[in-house]
Structure formats: C-alpha cells, structure tokens
C-alpha cells in the first residue's frame, strides 16, 4: 500500500530512528515542492537517520483517515514519538525544523 520512493541517494535506512511520511495528492506543484524540500532538509539535518514514505492520497484515499490528514501536503513524523504534523510545501525550513523538533537536537 505505502508507496516506497526509489532512493538514489542511499541516505535512508530501514533502521532509521526518524520515520517520516509525506502525504501528497497527485503531482501538484505543492507536492513536488514538498518532497524536494523534505529531502533537502533531511540530507542536511538528519543524514543517515531517516526514512521517508510518500503516500499519494489520490491512489490511496483511505489512508487519509488514519493519520488525520486534511491538508495537503502533510508531513507526519511517525518516529520518534510523539506524532507531529507539518502542513505546507515545507518551503519554510525553519518552521519544518521546529515542527520536527530537529532544531533543538541540531543545536545540542
């Protein structure tokens, strides 16, 4: 069900402590931008410790319910807990880092 995005950079690992899921609806401008932005942020801040799942709601509409998705795109931090949601095309890097609670980790 969950579409695994090909991973040309091999920076994602299956044992990653960071599990992120990005919900998109088709290949809209926002969706593409969000995925691009997410990858960039992860490479810069979570290298080697993350795994990204992309869910296209047009293909799997039922999945929207499980993670309480209303806005698209929505990034869900499945791990580490607690669950966090970030909506938008993730163009605002600072907000994404705050939302993922990466910022504090990076500084420490």
């Amino acid at each position, binding site marked *: 069900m969950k579409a695994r995005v090909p991973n040309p950079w091999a920076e994602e690992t299956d044992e990653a402590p960071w599990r992120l899921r990005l919900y998109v609806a088709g290949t809209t401008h926002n969706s593409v931008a969000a995925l691009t932005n997410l990858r960039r942020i992860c490479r810069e801040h979570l290298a080697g410790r993350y795994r990204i799942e992309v869910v296209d709601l047009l293909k799997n509409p039922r999945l929207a319910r499980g993670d309480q998705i209303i806005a*698209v795109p929505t990034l869900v931090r499945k791990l580490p807990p607690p669950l966090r949601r970030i*909506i938008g095309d993730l163009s*605002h890097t600072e907000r994404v880092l705050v939302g993922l609670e990466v910022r504090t980790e990076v500084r420490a």
Partner: protein
Amino acid sequence: MKPARSSRPGVKSAAAIRAIPHPAPRFTRLRAAALRKTPTGIRGLDEIMDGGLPTGRATLCCGGPGCGKTLLGVEFLVNGATRYDEPGVFLAFEESEVELAQNVAALGFNLRKLVAGGRLVIDHVRIERSEIEEAGAYNLDGLFIRLGEAIDRIGARRVVLDTIDVLFDGLRDASIVRAELRRVFQWLKQKGVTAIVTAERGENTLTRHGLEEYVSDCVIALDHRVTEQLTTRRLRVVKYRGSVHGTNEYPFLIDRGGLSVWPITSLKLEHSAPEDRVSSGIRPLDAMLEGGFHRGGSVLLAGTAGTGKTSVAATFAAAACRRGERCLYCAFEESPEQIIRNMRSIGLDLRRWVRAGRLRFHAVRPTYYGLEMHLARTIATVEEFAPAAVVLDPVSSFGGSSNVTERRNALIRLVDVLKRRNVTSLMVDLTVGGETLERTTADVSSIVDTWIVLRDLESQGERNRGLHVLKSRGTAHSNQIREFVITSRGIELREVYLGPGGILTGSARLAQEARDAAERKLRAEERDRERRSLAQKREILHREATALQLELANVEADINRRRNETQLRQFQEARDRADLALSRHATGSRATTRQREHGGVQ
C-alpha cells in the same frame, strides 16, 4: 391561504399573534418550478421548509453551543439512511465516532448499526492546533479526498460537516480556510449531495466566521434561550433561496426520537365541528348548556381558589369514563394519588377508572420542562392514549413561568391538536383574586368554546360557590347563576333563590327556604281553617233548613187540618141543615134541597 411571508422574520406583531394559528406555508402552487427538496424526516421541519432541504445544495445550520446542531445533522443522516434510502457521511470535527454514537444513543439512534450496514460513514476529523506546524503553501485536498472517498464508498446522498469552525481554530491561515471552504461547497454541489454544514453562532452575525457568505442557499438558525430558568429551544429558517418557507421562530424540542419542531398542526383552522354533546357529569349543568359540551369543544373552567374547579373537572373525567370513553387528566399541581384521594371524598372513584385503563394521569411539575417540552409531551401522550376527553388542571401552570404570550400560543396549539382529534378539552384556570372574573391568567378565553365561571358568593359572613356559564358558542345557554354544592355524593346545583341583594346562597338560602316552608304551612293552615268554617256554616244552614222544612211541614199539616176541619164543619152544617129541612118540610130529595139552600146562603 397565503404563504407566510414576512419581511422581518421572527418579529411577531400583536396582530400576528392574534392571528394564530399561523397560516400554513403552503406552496403547492409554486411547486412546479421549485427546486427539488430532500426531506429531513424531522418532525415539523419539513413542513416549515416546504418539503425539506434544497437537494444537492449545502444548508448552513448555525447556533450557539448545545443548541442541537449536531443532532439536527445526525437525524438528517439517520432518517436519510433508514427512511429515504439515502446513505450519508458525517464528518465530525468535534466528536469521535464513539462519542457521537454514545451521545445520540439516548435519543434512540443506533449509529453503530448503520455504520456496520454501510448506510453511514462517520469520519472524525481531528485537528489539534498544537500538533500542526504550518510550513508553506497547502490546501485542504486531504479533506476533499477523505470526504470523496467516504461518499463514493457507500454511495452517499447526504453529507454533514459538523462543526466547520474547528477548521478555523485548527489552522492559522484563515484566508486559506475560507478559500478552501468555498471550494468544498462548490465541490459538494458538483457531487450532487445534500449537505448540512453546522457553524457556531457569532456575536452579531449568524456565524462566527461569516460562513453565511459562502453557504447562502439555505440558512437555519437554532437558538437555546433561558427565560426564568427554563430553557426553550427555537428554530428559524433565516433564508431559503428559491423556496418559500415559514419565517417564524418555532419552538423545537429534543426528546426520545430526536428533534421535533412545533407547531406542525396549528397551521390550519379546518377541524370539523361535531353536533353531538358530551355530558359534563353534572346533570343540571348539562341542562344549562342544552345537553352538555360540544364534542371536540374546548371548555374553560375558570374560578378563584377553592371554588371546586378540580372537583368539577374530575366529575367530567369520571363521566367520560362512565360512558366508556378514555380520558387523559393532565395534572400540573397535584399528584394523581392526591387527586384520587380528594375526589373519593366527594364520591368519585377515579381509581376504578385508572385500573380499567380509561383514565390516565399525566402528571408533571410545571417547572420541570420548558413550555415546548410540556406541549410536546402532552401531545405525544394524547396521540398514544387517544382519549376522548382531556383535562388540563390547571392551564395557569402549563409551562411554568413562561410568559403569557408563549403559554397562550402553546395552549392554542394544544387546543388545536385536540380539536382536530375531536377530543373534548376541559381547561381549568385559576383566576387570581382581585382580577376580574372575565380575565383569566392564561388569557385563553378567546380560544375556548364554552366558558364556565366558578365564583365565590359572599354574603352574610359566608362564602358560597356559584356557577354560571359565561359563554358557550353555538348554545342557547342558561344565564342563571346557580349555587353549587359539593356533597359527599358529588356536585349538586341548587335552585336559584333570588333575594333583594342578588341570589341567595348558603345559610341565606337555607333561611329563605325555611321561611318559605313556614309560609307555606301557614297558608295551608289558613286554607284548612277556612274550609272548616265553611263546612260549619253549611252544617248550620243545613240544620236551619231542616228545621224550616219541619216547620213548613207543620204549617202545611196545620193548613190541611184546618181545611179538613172546615170541610167537615161545612158538611156537618149542611147535614144539619138538611136534617132540619127534612124535619121541617120533608119535600124533594135531600141533595137538591141542600144545594138550593147552600146557594141561597151565598
């Protein structure tokens, strides 16, 4: 009848109140060109909305917290799924599926079953602002997708979004929410589903976030007001594009079975008018009313405290039971047991009729419910029990401390329902001392057909009870004030005693009766005496007559005797003369001689 249309919805002028029952919003003439309607199945609402919500459009339902928005939505979907074969989707922004199912279970809705049967989808959309970070451009496609998926899954025709305000609270960018909502409503229209969108009421606007600008086809406002510690729910159709609708504020209630909007029956004045009469249980009163109350009529029994209103009412109820009819006794001030006990003291065995299932008490504290609840409960009981007679004791307590206009309207509705069902209603009303008897506390006098006044008659240091018929439509009723007495055998009406200062009651009447009796006796004695003296006189005369008769006989006898004596003497004289002649001449016969002789003498 013209459709009820007003430029100022909800504003009732005095004239409008007087014109109650409201003219029915009847739209038959317009139906041909009118838009299609989707029935809500909610009692009363479809009548007000001329058939239901606009099909394929979104209806905004706004109101403050706890006024029944969610329930309206749930019932719309439940009725759709169970009665109109239209499955529905409930997008719950506030409650989870479990909570929702629990909350409406008490009202008799089994959501779980509908969900399991694929007739209903409940999707809880949880938006927690603290869990959401906004980082860049987004839209609400997720919501569309979820809704679209649910609609397609069960082929839904109905959708409820409850409550849309949560979106504004959960997302920072209100402009995006606005734009997206506009898109949602457009999209719902395209989908052809009939939707209800609920929203919180704003301070001075219908909704807090000005949603009425987007959902402008149909707007229903719910209200939940507390007046004198009693709440009354009200519903108003603020706007209905392309359709006429009732514009008044209608009270509604939430009860087992869901929502019901009132009035639904007071729209027309077309009840039949049966000719036959129903006995009041008091024969002299029936006589005063040309045989009793009209069946299906409304009777007002007004009087000051302690004038025996309940006794008369109970007598009426018992009379109905005795005829084999059913009677509903709505007691708002006394418990059934108390009434049964008290009525036993005047020789009425009400328990017997309760046991026989002919008499039912509907006893509720007036302050327990709001007015509309009272009304609905009473009507529900009437519909279930189907009585031929109803007693409301007292109407002054009906609906507790609601204002007079509301109570009056409620009573009009009730009387209307009863008339429609040909139920004779007896309303007991307390007249507060100091007020004129022609004014009743419930101010229902104009809607009653027969008005009986019980009053205190004070004279010579006594209070006695008087009864008169103030009015009785279609009856040449008595104009007498009768004294009525409550005895251990029931109620008796006494003959009228007119004295110099009005009618005589109580001791005065008794004294008058005694005086009358004495006088009668006196007169009889006098007559007796007269008769006796005449008889005596006759006796005397009779005796006198006998004496005179005797005297007469004596006199006659005397006369006879004397005549005989005379004859005898003459004969003797004649014989003597003949003898003398014979001796003297001895010529001719004796007889001729005597004749000649006799003639010669004369």
